[in-house]
């Protein structure tokens, strides 16, 4: 039950090119209107603030699982009137102009290509890829539309295997359990992913952090013994993988989603990105949040791992742990696990379970699922 809090929530809409162009045109017209009116002024650009201070948490009333975060209607400005920030103001307009042209041509562009085009058209304004990427996020925050809607394509590192049938429009059905150890590659095209028809007889979805583990599980055809769908982003999750996972969670709401990550802060960080989103992708990231539970590796699995497989936590790990701890969205039980990690000063990888045999991983997963041992 949320009374009027919806007004606070800011999302990036997924729009067709014509609507994005319309929004850009409206932005231009508004600017001109204020510039040419009786009391002329150079209006500022109001962007949804992407700082962590603008993150709001919506707590579920009944369970912790319903918690999700969003960016609220708090704005930061890009203004021509502030000397050291004037360039940022101009950059936003330049990127909008470029995206408008690309959308008119009905094409797509990568962030790198956009960098080169901007570098040549406006060399005084753009000097690095990072600047371009940040400006793109500014445009997303201004127009409230997704990066993909602006015509910017990004590749996906995600793959799926297991008990899932997918069908692209006008194509043949693909059985993800027959895709071998390399799995079904998730396309970077969000429009295509949105139109995928999916069918499943699985009972669980398992996110696997690492490609090697995914490959092992797919090769051993673990999904023939346990009714699961395996999905991986091969490390830090990209938008397309998160988008597809989110679609799966909406299409098959009765399937719990669990993550299999290494016992280290980075593993938990990946779980949290799938679960809550990240500040990097600004407005879009939270849209694809899913209720992800932690299957393993966890504290109670440590007795399965030989002493030699433990490695000390590095300074970078501790940094990540600190950042996770300070997040208000981290669940209590996850917080306890993280505290245990930091306290022990050690980390371990999933591969350590192979100590018990190469087929042990499948048995481990099955046992945990059957015991509903996930948090």
């Amino acid at each position, binding site marked *: 039950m949320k009374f009027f809090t919806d007004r606070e929530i800011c999302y990036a809409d997924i729009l067709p090119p014509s609507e994005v162009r319309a929004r850009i045109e409206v932005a231009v017209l508004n600017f001109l209107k204020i510039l040419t009116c009786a009391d002329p002024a150079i209006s500022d650009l109001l962007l949804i603030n992407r700082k962590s201070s603008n993150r709001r948490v919506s707590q579920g009333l009944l369970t912790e699982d319903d918690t999700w975060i969003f960016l609220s209607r708090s704005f930061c400005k890009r203004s021509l009137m502030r000397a050291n920030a004037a360039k940022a103001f101009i950059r936003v307009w330049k990127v909008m102009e470029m995206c408008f042209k690309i959308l008119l041509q009905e094409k797509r562009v990568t962030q790198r*290509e956009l960098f080169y085009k901007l570098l040549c058209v406006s*060399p005084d304004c753009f000097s690095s890829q990072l600047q371009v990427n940040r400006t793109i996020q500014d445009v997303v925050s201004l127009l409230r539309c997704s990066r993909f809607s602006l015509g910017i394509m990004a590749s996906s590192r995600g*793959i799926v295997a297991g008990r899932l049938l997918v069908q692209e429009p006008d194509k043949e059905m693909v059985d993800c359990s027959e895709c071998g150890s390399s799995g079904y590659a998730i396309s970077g095209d969000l429009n295509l992913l949105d139109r995928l028809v999916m069918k499943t007889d699985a009972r669980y979805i398992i996110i696997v952090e690492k490609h090697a583990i995914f490959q092992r599980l797919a090769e051993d055809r673990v999904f023939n013994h346990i009714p699961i769908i395996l999905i991986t982003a091969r490390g830090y999750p990209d938008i397309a993988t998160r988008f597809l996972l989110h679609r799966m969670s909406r299409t098959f709401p009765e399937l719990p989603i669990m993550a299999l990550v290494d016992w280290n802060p980075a593993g938990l960080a990946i779980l949290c990105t799938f679960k809550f989103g990240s500040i990097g992708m600004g407005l879009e990231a939270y849209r694809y949040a899913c209720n992800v539970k932690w299957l393993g590796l966890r504290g109670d699995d440590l007795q399965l791992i030989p002493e030699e497989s433990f490695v000390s936590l590095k300074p970078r790990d501790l940094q990540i742990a600190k950042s996770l701890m300070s997040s208000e969205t981290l669940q209590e039980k996850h917080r306890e696990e993280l505290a245990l990690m930091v306290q022990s000063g050690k980390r371990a990888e999933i*591969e*350590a379970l*192979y100590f018990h045999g190469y087929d042990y991983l499948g048995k481990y997963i099955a046992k945990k699922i059957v015991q509903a041992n996930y948090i």
Partner: protein
Amino acid sequence: MGLREIYITCTHLCFQTVVDRAISDICILLQCSRHNLNVVSVGKGLVMGWLQFLEAGRKFDCISSPTTAYTIPVHVEEVKDIVSVAKYILIVEKESVFQRLANDKFCNANRCIVITGRGYPDIPTRRFLRLLVEKLCLPVYCLVDCDPYGFDILTTYRFGSMQMAYDAKNLRVPEVQWLGVFPSDFEKYDLPQQCLLPLTSEDKRRTETLLLRCYLQKEVPEWRLELELMLQKGVKFEIEAFSVHTLSFLSDQYLPSKIQEVEVLPGNKIKS
């Protein structure tokens, strides 16, 4: 079995790099390849175009959708029944370039097979390429950025890598020809000055190391000249720079013109 899996099982013995070397030593001793010992790496190569093959009973029908990317199978020894109507194989260094070609539907207008190793090619990608060349006897063109990194990837495809030198016979593809991008292409295709990026000190060091490689003297002296030119000018540029003209400049103009040059004057215009 993956390399990391073996490492973890033997962690009490050594570091992963040591495991890697031990496996290489065993391969040298037994005069076999890694896959003969059932050691596999994770696959990251992609392929698209006018190709069809079977792998462990599964059909890869790239021809039915020539602009869709398919993952290159990890167990290359199980690939058979290769069928193709392509005229050449094009290797691209980066996934973003592969994506650009897919987006521009390059394979619809050009009868070819496009492969990418997404950076440094892994063993399955190299073995797959070699298999295609052996079975199809098609010319192989390689498109990399005009920088030391790209050049290193080009030489990896052609000559193999130092770490896998013992298996070079199975992994190198001597038919690989350097299609582009050359330092001379910068003026030839009218790129603006801003697209030229300066070589960093790391780039320069890398180039100097590359120049020391023996095969550059003996087998491909023309490649060496281009590399020396790059070092001398102190600049590099990426394939994406072509998007400055039009987004599909690479697909519509650069690639077709380069390939046409090759067909008209084989082995002459491009460095082979």
